[in-house]
């Protein structure tokens, strides 16, 4: 590739990202992929070493806008284990409620995007509309729609006031009705079956070798979920199911995420009804020398933090592993051999951040760009339109929009 004379990209608003994901093709089949992820590196682990232990949650909640509750929770759990802190029960329940509300709005956001990638823009509009009340609840409790700043070492910073509890329950009732409608529409639609079944298959064997996690893993029959396997917050006190599917294709990943929203509603209802009294934080004086790990089931999968202390007031080492770091490389196993029209939806099914999925390009063996993101989106939506014509089914009709 020739280097540009003027440094314009990769964040220029008019320019498509160059080679973020580069696919090499033979005709319409993907034969290889390469990925570059350095554009958004912010040196967070390095910054952590300059902060005090209780400042780090504010830093890590900004790693990702939609995993914003999970990173600080995994981190404080590691430090609480290191310092042998007993977190009050009420705080454990508040953490559970906030993290399940996050799971709901993240999965619904994803459902909308997945619809958009294959040309079902009604799903996109609908999903993002019904996501709003969840964000409103989060704002009412924590003051913010994302970046809640609600967790600290020893407990929570903000409590759930009594008057908010019935609001949460009412919203959950409404949301459950809407979700059931969406789930039925998706599971019954023959075009979605044709478009997404057998597409982007990730086998259980490959999944284990790529160390994948979250809905991406559960849709490939890997039955892991930190909330059940190494319970934290109040998950062990609630009755809910781990959702798995055996097929490993994009359709299976859709089903897992939609059904998980219903499980999240169940958990929230139980947590709100059982919310115990008492303080929402324990006092923490010093963090002794030592090391510990903390993990939480973020919407995308297991978020893992490792913390080492030398007895001072800053972490000596703080390792952060977001679930996408192991899930995204598995794109290699699920994409090679597939159709280029399926590339955007296969990547989207792993659920990385939206900004990652935008940076997709197909190149020839000399690095010349054959298809950019716009072109790949067009191919994906055309493929769906063709199926709609062939199958003769009406497009998804969602009431009440």
């Amino acid at each position, binding site marked *: 590739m020739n280097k540009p004379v003027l440094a314009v990209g990769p964040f220029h608003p008019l320019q498509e990202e160059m080679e973020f994901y580069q696919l090499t093709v033979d005709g319409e089949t993907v034969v290889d992929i390469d990925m570059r*992820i*350095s*554009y958004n*590196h912010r*040196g967070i*682990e*390095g*910054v952590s*070493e*300059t902060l005090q232990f209780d400042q780090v949650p504010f830093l890590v909640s900004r790693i990702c806008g939609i995993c914003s509750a999970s990173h600080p929770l995994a981190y404080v759990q590691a430090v609480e*284990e290191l310092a042998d802190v007993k977190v009050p029960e009420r705080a454990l329940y508040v953490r559970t409620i906030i993290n399940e509300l996050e799971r709901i709005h993240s999965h619904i956001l994803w459902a909308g995007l997945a619809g958009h990638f294959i040309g079902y823009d009604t799903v996109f509009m609908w999903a993002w509309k019904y996501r709003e009340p969840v964000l409103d609840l989060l704002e009412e409790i924590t003051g913010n729609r994302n970046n809640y700043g609600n967790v600290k070492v020893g407990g929570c910073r903000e409590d759930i006031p009594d008057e908010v509890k019935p609001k949460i329950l009412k919203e959950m009732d409404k949301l459950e009705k809407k979700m059931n409608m969406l789930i039925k529409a998706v599971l019954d639609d023959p075009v979605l079956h044709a478009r997404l079944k057998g597409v982007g298959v990730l086998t259980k064997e*490959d999944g*284990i*070798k*790529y*160390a994948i996690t979250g809905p991406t893993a559960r849709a490939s029959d890997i039955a*892991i979920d930190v909330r059940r*396997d*190494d*319970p934290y917050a109040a998950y062990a006190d609630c009755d809910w199911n781990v959702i798995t599917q055996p097929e490993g294709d994009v359709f299976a990943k859709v089903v897992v995420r939609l059904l998980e929203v219903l499980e999240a509603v169940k958990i929230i209802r139980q947590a709100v009804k059982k919310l115990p009294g008492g303080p929402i934080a324990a006092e923490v004086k010093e963090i002794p020398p*030592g*090391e*510990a*790990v903390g*993990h939480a089931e973020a919407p995308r999968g*297991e978020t*893992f933090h*490792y913390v*080492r202390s030398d007895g001072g007031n800053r972490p000596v*080492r703080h*390792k952060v*592993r977001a679930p996408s*770091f*192991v899930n995204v*490389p598995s794109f290699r*196993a699920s994409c090679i051999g597939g159709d280029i029209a399926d590339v955007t939806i296969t990547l989207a099914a792993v659920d990385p951040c939206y900004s990652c999925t935008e940076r997709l390009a197909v190149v020839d063996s000399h690095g010349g760009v054959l298809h950019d993101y716009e072109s790949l989106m067009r191919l994906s939506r055309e493929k769906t339109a063709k199926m709609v014509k062939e199958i003769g089914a009406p497009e998804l009709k969602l009431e009440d929009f």
Partner: protein
Amino acid sequence: MNQQELNDNLLKIKDKLIGFEQVRDNRITLTCEAENSYALNKYLFEDVPLRFVIATGIDAEHSFEVLYHYAYDQTGCMVTLKAVIRDRQNPAIESLTPFLPAAEWIEREIHDILGIDFKNHPDLRRLVLSDDWPEGVYPLRKGSPK
């Protein structure tokens, strides 16, 4: 396999370890010299087997350490294998990529920010730092400018 059986399985490799710590029932740290890392990791991943989570590289002042984190989901046990690299001038350890595709990116990242060499890695180019980042500057080494 319950927790006791897991502990027994881990103790089978005791002769290759220089440390075995169980701070809680479900938190175990095994320590080894770097040259035993490959065989021990292969045992943990394939034979026990445990679920691989991530590897952490650390500048531990008198040595480098690579911590391989695993999970045993049946009991919620987290097992960390801490491999100690004594050579600070040319820190190196064997790559796990021959049996663990997940290690490919993980080792590239550690190499990028700490300068540890992973022998037999198929493609050790930069992962997180930009292309024009200066050679030989490792941001997560102690003494590196923040």
